């Protein structure tokens, strides 16, 4: 083979396969906003938008009145994670449904709760993206645009239930301190790989599987720091699930002032994180590798394996 031919072969060769966490040791991506920058912009954008802050308040009050009317006795603190991405919000889906209908029937109702929360989350994502893109306040068109993400977010809520149950089963087999680690790893991992999917659905109008696959590829980009961000976000949130004495953790359908402060602040924090996720994805969207195309050679190899 000539030198030119070898050069062409090298140029057309697929990139070496990377391990799941191989990107962690890579140099930092220049185009990816730093975690602090992204969070600051996400916070400033979402918190300064009257529509987002007002929407969070109205949604919380409305959802609380509905669940209380359905027989839910508290605790109110459960609503602190309504605006969180999956699987952090999956605990709210599960606890609300089993808290109203009991453990047996409630597990069937979890997807209904997930669908309602998916609707709210889609709207919130749309609003957060708009504030990031425009640098100004969100408008109702941002909310309407966010509805594009509904199928993806709904699918994520279903996946979230599977992730939580799988983690619990594995944790139960491991037992003790391992249980905590497994659950934490599942939360961080799922937050990491799926965080961009709603943003992709809103901004790129891709199909469900494409959104999920692209979210995973974006999350795994070397030097992006996405896993670190997911960990910095999900670990403290998980800690709030285990922390006793937080406001609003008692059975009480008339939450005290401190409980409202806590729940509203947590939801605004989640909104800020959504803004940060949106910013980080939009900054590197053009660099996310496309899904690998199966070449004829790989198809042949697969068929040969099948024949063997």
């Amino acid at each position, binding site marked *: 083979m000539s030198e030119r031919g070898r050069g062409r072969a090298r140029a057309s060769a697929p990139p070496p396969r990377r391990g799941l966490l191989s990107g962690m040791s890579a140099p930092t991506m220049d*185009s990816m*906003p730093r975690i602090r920058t992204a969070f*600051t*912009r996400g*916070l*400033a*954008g*979402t*918190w*300064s938008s009257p529509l987002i*802050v*007002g929407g*969070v*308040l109205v949604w*919380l*009050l409305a959802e*609380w009145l509905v669940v*209380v009317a359905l*027989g*839910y*006795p*508290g*605790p109110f603190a*459960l609503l602190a994670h309504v605006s969180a991405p999956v699987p952090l919000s999956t605990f709210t889906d599960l606890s609300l449904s*089993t*808290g*109203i*209908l*009991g*453990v047996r029937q*409630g597990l069937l109702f979890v997807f209904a709760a997930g669908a309602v929360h998916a609707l709210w989350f889609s709207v919130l994502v749309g609003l957060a993206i708009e504030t*990031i*893109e*425009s*640098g*100004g306040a969100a408008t109702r068109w941002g909310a309407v645009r966010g509805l594009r993400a509904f199928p993806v977010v709904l699918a994520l809520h279903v996946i979230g239930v599977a992730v939580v149950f799988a983690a619990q089963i594995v944790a139960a087999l491991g037992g003790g301190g391992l249980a905590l680690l497994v659950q934490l790893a599942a939360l961080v991992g799922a937050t990491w790989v799926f965080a961009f999917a709603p943003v992709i659905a809103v*901004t*790129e*109008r891709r199909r469900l599987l494409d959104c999920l696959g692209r979210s995973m590829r974006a999350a795994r980009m070397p030097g992006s720091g996405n896993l670190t961000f997911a960990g910095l976000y999900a670990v403290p949130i998980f800690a709030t699930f285990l922390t006793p004495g937080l406001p609003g*953790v*008692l*059975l*009480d*359908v*008339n*939450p*005290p*002032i*401190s*409980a*409202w*402060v806590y*729940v*509203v602040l947590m939801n*605004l924090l989640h909104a800020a994180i959504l803004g940060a996720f949106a*910013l980080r994805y*939009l*900054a590197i*969207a*053009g660099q996310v590798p496309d899904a690998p195309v199966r070449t004829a050679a790989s198809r042949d190899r697969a068929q040969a394996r099948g024949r063997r």
Partner: protein
Amino acid sequence: MRLSHLSRVPRRSLAAACFTIAIVVGAPLAALADWVQFQGAGAHDGVSDGPQAPWAVAWTNDDITLEGTDRTGGLSSPVVAEDGTIVVVAPTAVLGFSDADGSPVFDADRDFGPSSQPAIGNTPDGPIAVFTEGFGDSGPAGGSVTPSPSPADEGDTGFDSHVNAVDLETGEPAWPAPVPLEDIVQTPVAVDGTSAYVGDVGGRVTVIDLASGDVRWTKELGSPISGAITLDAGRVLATTLGGQDQPSEIVALDDESGDELWRANAEDASNLVSAPVVADGRMLTLDALGGVIAFDADDGRFLWRTEVVNPIAPGGQPFHLQGVSAPAPVSAEGRVFAVDVTGRVYAFNAETGAALWDQALNDPSQFSPPLLTQDQLLVPTDSGTLYAVDRESGHVVSRVDGGRTFLRGLSDSGDLLVGVMGFEEAELVAFGADEAGTLIDEPSPTTLDIGELLTGFLVGGVLTGLVASLLARPLQRRLGPPPLPATPEESV
């Protein structure tokens, strides 16, 4: 008719006569001190004629030293003899106290074992305290304090566990030898006029003659027994916990022979975790998934099951079987009441099982069943507070702090209510009527109060949102729009 029934009649008649005379004369009625076993009587109905709220602490006795290497079990729930002697079981002793001031009356050695509630039975020689003892070689602290020899030791590699009895007057052993058991006992002892009844974790019911200490009969039920044995109308009722292949049910045995009469179970029930409680012809029990279940007390026919849902119940299980703690419902005058481990109180229609009200005390009550007085439901809690809940409205009408955590085992000692507190640092406490006290009227926090809700929302929620928004606006103005490349959608 058995002697036990004969002996009960005169006492009941006497009490009725006293009551009638007191009403007629108009004099205040001094309640009888007679709380000889778990929840007062063989039916375990938990109905007390003791003082109603408001109460004050009448006396406490914290000068109780627990012996042994493992004192974590603390004191058992107390029982009260007719003369007012309060009896509790400590890890390695049986202790007697005066109900006048809590001062010690007697103590007797006991093999190290779970602090299960004893019972007081009558014999021709006087009242005796019947208790279980022994953890055997598999005890939690790795060995018993005084592994006393017993017939169970001979060739038996199982638990060294027995039933024993002491004379209340002298503190001396009442039987020639302890009665050996094949497994440890974590449930209260039950008594009637002639016999003591224990159910062990191996699923055996053992019935012992009070006077002689001889075993009358035993019955193998095949599954751990999850509450005190209940005695009703010549029947011995035992709840079996069940397992993977064994149903959880209530087994009725003939009191004379031990023959099985019937078994009661509910199709959709989980593991039954309480003693059967008999009241008004119904047999009530609790299951782990929050079921309150009623059967016909005569034939075990299923009547109803109502499931309570409590989002903060650990593991989704409102009712727990937890060591020697013994949950149980109570019932009277057409209502059934239950308290779950989080301290949430429920009332149901006894006929239909329909929920009537609930009261979320938000104060866990893991170790003790409630009691019923004429107007109130009394709930001892883990914080050490004793609550009175109005039976009609479900509102809290009184609360009193006992001064130490883990108040449990409330027993009626006539004019006082006696309980134990703490575990390793044990204390005996008595509550009496507080003439100067006043009742309160607090609805459950699970009752919607739209004014309170909106106040919290406006002051807590809206204000927080406003502050957040005001703080973020200057920052957003300063940052401006971020420099973003065109998105793939825009570039298409």
